[in-house]
């Protein structure tokens, strides 16, 4: 009986202990190695979260147990608890750049640290830069279309937008999107945005795309570089020269009709006193409206001087045309006859 009891006990002990022994890891990694693995695993969770959010990495506050979309969280090998932020052994520190495109993760070992960094892959940045260039080229075509429809004058800055005059043109219903924020490309200074500058006479412009990996991508356009627009500009300049001579004639006629007095600056407009006397006021060929005073191509500057002299400068695409001179005065009335 006793021998049976001892035998049964021995079998029971073996049956209980053997599976437990088999279940035990054969070779346990050192806690520092396990901590490195935990940090790498955490990096995997961070990368996964970043990729799911347009490569914008999670905020510092969300990189903690329960903060990322994961049912599993790496462990502190010294305590067996879930890894938490801190600066002591078995903890980690996570920081992310302001634009959330890059991060750094530091894990604290037993006597040392392990640091890993991550961020938006370079291949994606390259793709986004190229997509921005494609978008800028599309905008350039829209701008050229605008210029063709506006006598070769490029749009002012405010018009170069999806909801501006350029974006509202026929055939321009789609405005390129900025791959970095997935909204319409806008005139800003951040990546994927652009700047637009136009010359004072609106005959030339510069577009700049702000890229991530390289300096600005620049596209320039000028009416002078387009043979068709160059021809148009020369024709418009010739019309403006003739219009300048017509206006000069109006000044002379006014002088003759007003005892040698020159019209005042405000009089020499389509809506002024001279204009009232001449309904066939010359038109600005660039805009199709009546020529007016100003400094842009298609406009003129008039300054009356002394003794019938006046300055009349017509502003062309190719510079200024001087149409001023000295207005004729009416002939002097005959004096009293000699007795």
């Amino acid at each position, binding site marked *: 009986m006793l021998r049976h009891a001892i035998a049964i*006990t021995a079998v029971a002990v073996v049956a209980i202990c053997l599976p437990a022994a088999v279940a035990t890891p*054969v070779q346990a990694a050192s806690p520092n190695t396990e901590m490195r*693995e935990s940090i790498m695993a955490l*990096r*995997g969770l961070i990368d996964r979260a970043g990729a799911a959010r*347009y490569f914008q990495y999670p905020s510092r506050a969300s990189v903690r147990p329960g903060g990322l979309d994961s049912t*599993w969280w790496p462990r502190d090998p010294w305590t067996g608890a879930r890894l938490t932020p801190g600066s002591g052994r078995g903890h980690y520190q996570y920081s992310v750049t302001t634009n959330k495109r890059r991060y750094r993760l530091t894990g604290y070992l037993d006597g040392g640290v392990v640091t890993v960094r991550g961020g938006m892959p370079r291949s994606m940045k390259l793709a986004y830069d190229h997509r921005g260039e494609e*978008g800028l080229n*599309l905008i350039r075509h829209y701008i050229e279309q605008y210029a063709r429809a506006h006598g070769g004058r490029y749009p002012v800055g405010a018009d170069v937008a999806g909801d501006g005059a350029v974006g509202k043109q026929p055939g321009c219903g*789609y405005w390129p999107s900025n791959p970095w924020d997935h909204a319409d490309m806008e005139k800003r200074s951040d990546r994927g945005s652009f700047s637009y500058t136009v010359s004072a006479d609106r005959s030339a412009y510069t577009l700049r795309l702000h890229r991530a990996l390289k300096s600005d991508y620049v596209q320039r356009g000028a009416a002078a570089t387009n043979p068709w627009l160059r021809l148009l500009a020369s024709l418009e300049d010739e019309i403006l020269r003739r219009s300048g001579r017509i206006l000069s004639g109006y000044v002379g006629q006014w002088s003759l009709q007003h005892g040698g007095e020159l019209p005042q600056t405000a009089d020499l407009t389509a809506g002024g006193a001279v204009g009232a006397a001449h309904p066939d006021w010359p038109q600005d060929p660039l805009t199709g409206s009546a020529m007016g005073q100003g400094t842009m191509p298609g406009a003129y500057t008039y300054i009356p001087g002394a003794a019938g002299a006046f300055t009349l400068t017509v502003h062309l695409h190719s510079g200024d045309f001087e149409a001023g001179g000295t207005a004729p005065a009416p002939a002097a009335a005959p004096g009293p006859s000699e007795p």
Partner: protein
Amino acid sequence: MTRRTTILVLSLAVLLLAGAVLPSRASAVSFVDQQVKASGLLLQNYINRYGQAREFAYPPAKMVKKGGGLTAPIWPANPWTGKVMAPGKSRGNYTYTLGAGDTSYRLVMHLSTGSYKLTGGMPRWLKSERDTASKQNLLLLQRYVEEYAAAHAGSYPAAAEMTPEAFGAGYVWPKNPRTGFPMAVGTGLGDFSYTSDGGGYTLKVKLTTGWSAAFGPISVLGRLTGAPGD
């Protein structure tokens, strides 16, 4: 000591041993399974980093092992054997399967009982983003075609001329957002279709949802026909 006493002592010893060992065994198994899960996340990290650096084309199965070519500072060990964790269906090992088009994968970690599954793939947003880019690129091609016609007395290019080489360096040729290579005539995602009889044309791009709407001549630009572009 009587026999009865001896039996009682032995029975008590067995009970105490069972009470001590059984929970610790369960705990040990659970702990080892946790280690296997952690290792799965580690492997997933390496797989994801490979894919993200390659426009979300994930590694082939032959790469997902120690020394297979993945950048992996630490390769996990199988806690049940103490050897390198490797492809296989035994506990502590894993099974990696690449999805269609190499844009997704499935990683199964084999536990003491059951398994722990991890999946990954191209983010959904990227698919729509690439479709948007493809459509934008088609608009750019359309403008190039119009410029060509303006410089060629209103005649549109032949299909064979729809290449970056034919248009020249003055044109920023759009890239296929999926491959990173210049867009080309074809039937793959991001490729375009172009047909022309000289006096008109049809231009489409292949999206994840199928062929896009067809673009043709821009009527508002028709008056420029015959005028050279810049």
